[in-house]
Every structure is written in structure tokens, then in C-alpha cells.
């Protein structure tokens, strides 16, 4: 993996992980979707059962691999494998779910050691359908968890939104980072 790096997208079912990867991947993402047979079928027809994969080819032959974790908790044995060697975590939260804070804390706890060794950026999706909780309420929750991380409203279908989120993650990792001309 010398010239290969990973960026991990995680979040609950339906938060937009597959769509976000699709928005910035150079190639159509490889998904391992299957027909949803559990409660997920109430949300969408198919769901990711192993991972999503996309990639960005970088200058100099390097590659950034974009991995999306499966949303259901029963696949969380995959998460540790996926995060190994990752440069940071993008957490997408669906604001229309019953308890987005519970979702957030679940993923924060699950990925805590990875977050502590890298960094985290959070995108809240579906805010146009459900305005609450508000972002400042998310920040309060994050503050209680000792985190001050980028947190934006995001439409995973909009490349610009996903780019802002990833850029915020990179600048959080290295605030003095400059973009070459």
C-alpha cells in the first residue's frame, strides 16, 4: 500500500455513503449491494453488505481508495479491516432517522481509536426533509464527547458538498496545508 491510501466513509443505512463516494470517485463505484430483506427494505430497496469502493487517481501514480462501510451493525466486523491504513473518516448521518444523536455516538464509539489517530468530518444529510436536530445541537453532542470536528449540512448527490467535507477533513489533519498552484 506504499502508494495507496484509504479514505473511509461510514454512517447508518441510507445516510448517503454510496452516493458520496460516487460523487468524487474517478470511476463508477463498485458496490456490494444486495436486496434488502431486513428493516432496511423500509428505507431502500438494496443495501451495502460488504463495502463500497471508489478511487481517485493522484498525481505521481498514487491512488486514494474510497471505502464505504456497510451500514448495518451486523457487518461491523468489516470496519476494523477497512480502516486499517486509512487517512481519515467521513461520517454521514441521516437527519430523518429516529435518533441521529444515537447514530452519531454509536459510530464515534465504534471508530474512536481510528478517529483519535487520524481525524473526522461529519456530513448531515436529509436536512431539507428534517430540519432538526440542528447543527448546533450536534456540536453540543460532539463537545460532550470532547470533539471539535467539521460538521456540515451535506447533500451527498452534490459533488461540491462532498468535496467541502473531504477538504475540511484534510485541513483538519494539516491546517497549514497549501494547495499547489
Amino acid at each position: 500500500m506504499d502508494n495507496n491510501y484509504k479514505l473511509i466513509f461510514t454512517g447508518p443505512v441510507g445516510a448517503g455513503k454510496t452516493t458520496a463516494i460516487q460523487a468524487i470517485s474517478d470511476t463508477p463505484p463498485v458496490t456490494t449491494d444486495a436486496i434488502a430483506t431486513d428493516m432496511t427494505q423500509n428505507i431502500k430497496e438494496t443495501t451495502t453488505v460488504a463495502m463500497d469502493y471508489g478511487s481517485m487517481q493522484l498525481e505521481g501514480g498514487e491512488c486514494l481508495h474510497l471505502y464505504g462501510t456497510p451500514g448495518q451493525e451486523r457487518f461491523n466486523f468489516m470496519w476494523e479491516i477497512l480502516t486499517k491504513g486509512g487517512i481519515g473518516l467521513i461520517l454521514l448521518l441521516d437527519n430523518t432517522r429516529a435518533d441521529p444523536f444515537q447514530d452519531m455516538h454509536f459510530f464515534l464509539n465504534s471508530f474512536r481509536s481510528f478517529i483519535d489517530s487520524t481525524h473526522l468530518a461529519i456530513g448531515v444529510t436529509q436536512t431539507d426533509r428534517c430540519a432538526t436536530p440542528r447543527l448546533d445541537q450536534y456540536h453540543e453532542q460532539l463537545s460532550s464527547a470532547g470533539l471539535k470536528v467539521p460538521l456540515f449540512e451535506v447533500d451527498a448527490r452534490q459533488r461540491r458538498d462532498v468535496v467541502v467535507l473531504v477538504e475540511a477533513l484534510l485541513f483538519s489533519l494539516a491546517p497549514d496545508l497549501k494547495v499547489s498552484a
Partner: protein
Amino acid sequence: MMPSIDNHYRKPLRISLIGMDQRARDALQLFFHNLCHDDYLLADDSAADISIFDMDALHAQKSRAEHSQKHPQRPAILVSLLECEHDGAAFLKKPIQPQELLSALEKIRRELTAGERIAATAPVDEPKGKLPRPPVLDMAVSTTGYDANEDAAAPEKQEEELAPNYSGEIIPLFPDTHRKEEQSGQPEVVVPEPPQKEKAAFLYNPESYLQGYIQKACQLARQQNRNVSLLGPWRPIIILPETREIWVEQSHAHLYALSVMAIQPEDVTITPLESGEMPPEEGGSILPIELFLWKLAVRTARGRIPVGTDLRAPIHLTHWPNLSRLMPIHHGLRIAALWTSQPVSLMETATILNIPPKYIFSFYSAANALGLIVHEKRSNDDDRPSRQANQQQEHIGLFRKILARLRKRT
């Protein structure tokens, strides 16, 4: 007080602006239209009676010299942050005070009238009485985010009832010491803290502007948990604390255009509404206060910081602003990342990020308007940025490539 201006019929004085950016032009046009009743009109250089030069612009001296050769008889007013050679031309120091500008214009009008030099029939940009929509409204609108919707709004009436005793500064242009850097793409050394003499140009008082009155109204609304009405030289504005929204009857673009005009406290009324009293269901528009106030502060600050800001005091952000939806500020993500990672002063920020202070000042002013800035006392054991270990240095090259890749397709 405005200078006394004769009310008998007279022709508008046609003015050519040279070296001014679009915002300064817009502000002047709005000022001439709304407050001077089109006694002065912006005109093409070929048809103007008088020229106003921004001597802080690139190649200003050259432009002035060329212009003098082309129009040797045309009177001129020079504006600059610092005293400059003006060879007998009128000179106004920035920020320009309306009274001073009008006095200078009227003096020139008298001289021109005496010399009968005002052409009666030459065309002007926009004939008097035919200014349905000052260009400022179109030009000032950003095409990003929610602003795109503003352009789709139905055409509005443009008559504005502004305070007759208006006396604000109108074009406090920020000294663009980094213009060369922006054009060449080669960053220059960050401008050091300005000497006291120039410092005022970097400062503004939000309380004198619409921004300050909106902030006061928001504060009152929060304290009383009631909707609050804000009346002044604009159409009604109502703050809705429960949903953290603002209702405005006027177009957003026009309100943003008003952002540069100082407004007297006696012209503004902030009143809590009766419980349950809501804005009219028809007309007007509602948007999140955060989005409105952020943009208003950026427009008002224009690269400046509020008076009383200590350039050397360490600050940090309470949390990240919602930068995917707020009006973008150049380098905003970098500034936010730095200010959420550690307490840093404004001057240190300029050094660490190696960016022009005007971007930092804009971001500071906007974040401060939203209450996101926290001032910290410096302690001896502070972890100074220059000494802070950066665990990610090994990946800097990689991050840079990712950024470049992301932006290539944006």
C-alpha cells in the same frame, strides 16, 4: 448633515469612476440614486463631466496621467487611503465621508456651471428618473448557495426610504496590498500590522450598520424568546428566534447592498412582537439567520475587523461554521481548521497560513457575528503553532495531491 443643495432644476453631474472595483461602483451608484436623487450619475468616460480616481488601484498613477492627457479640462477627484500627489485636483481620504464627497462634487459643479461646460445632450449610463434597478442589486449577488434563489425572485420595487440624515462612510476600500500576489499566483510575505495611521482602514464598527442592528434584534429575540421586529430605512424585518430564521420583505440583494451604509440609531426601531405574532403569510421571504447574518457581515466588513479587535489576542472557534452552506470566504476552510485546532491570533493566522489578512479579517468578522469567536488569555505554557508537533507532516504531500485532484474537477 448633508451640504445644502439647490433644489431648482439642474442637470445631473455625470461621473466616471476610474480604478474602482465593482463593489465601490455599486455603493456609489446606490448612494447617488437613493440619497442624492440622481443629482449625480455614473457615466461612460467619454461622456463624463468629472472623473473620480481610486489612487490605491493598480497603475493608478499611470491611469491618471493618461486620463489627464486625454481630458485635460476635466475636473477630477482623487481618493486614497493615504495622502497622495493631487496636482490641484480635489482629494478625499478613505473611508470617504458622504458630506465631503458631496461638497467636492458641488464645488466642481459650481465651477463647471460657471464655465458652462456641462454638455446638455450627451448620453449617460442611465437617464435620470429611469433607474428601476440599480446595478448594485445584480452585481452584488453571489451565485453560490441560497443566493441563486434570490435571482429567481419576482422583480421588486426599488424605491428606498433611507434616512435623510444619512452620514455613513460609503467606500472604505481595503488597501489591496496583495493584488500583485493574486494576479501572479506567487504569494508574497504577509502584510505586517498596519501603522496606527492606517489602522482605521482595517476597522469598522458593526453597530453602525444593518449588521449591528440585526445582531441586536437577534439578541433581544433570544432573550425574550419572542419574535422581534426591526424597522429602519428598509422594509420590515422580523427575527424568528424559535426557528432561528429571519423574515425580510425586501429582496436579500438589496439588503446586502445596504450593508455598507451607516445608519443612525434614531432611525432604527427594534420591538418585540406580541406573543404569536408572525410575519405576513404572503410576500417577503424567510431564511436561516445564520446564512443571512454571515453574508451580511462579510459584505459589511469587506476585509475589515470590528473596532476593538486585538490583532495579537489568541482566539478560537467554538465550533466549525456550516461552511457547505454559508457564503464562501477564500481560505475559509483553512482558517476554520486552524481556529478549531488551537488558539491563534489574527496576525499569527496570517503568518501560519501565509494568506492576505483581508480573508482572515472577513472570516473573523463573519464568525464573530455568529458568536463563534472565543477570546483566550495567553498563558506561558501555550503551545505555540510554530512549535506544535504535526503528526501529519509525513502525509502533507499526499493531502496536497488529493486537494489538487478534488479541485481539478470542481
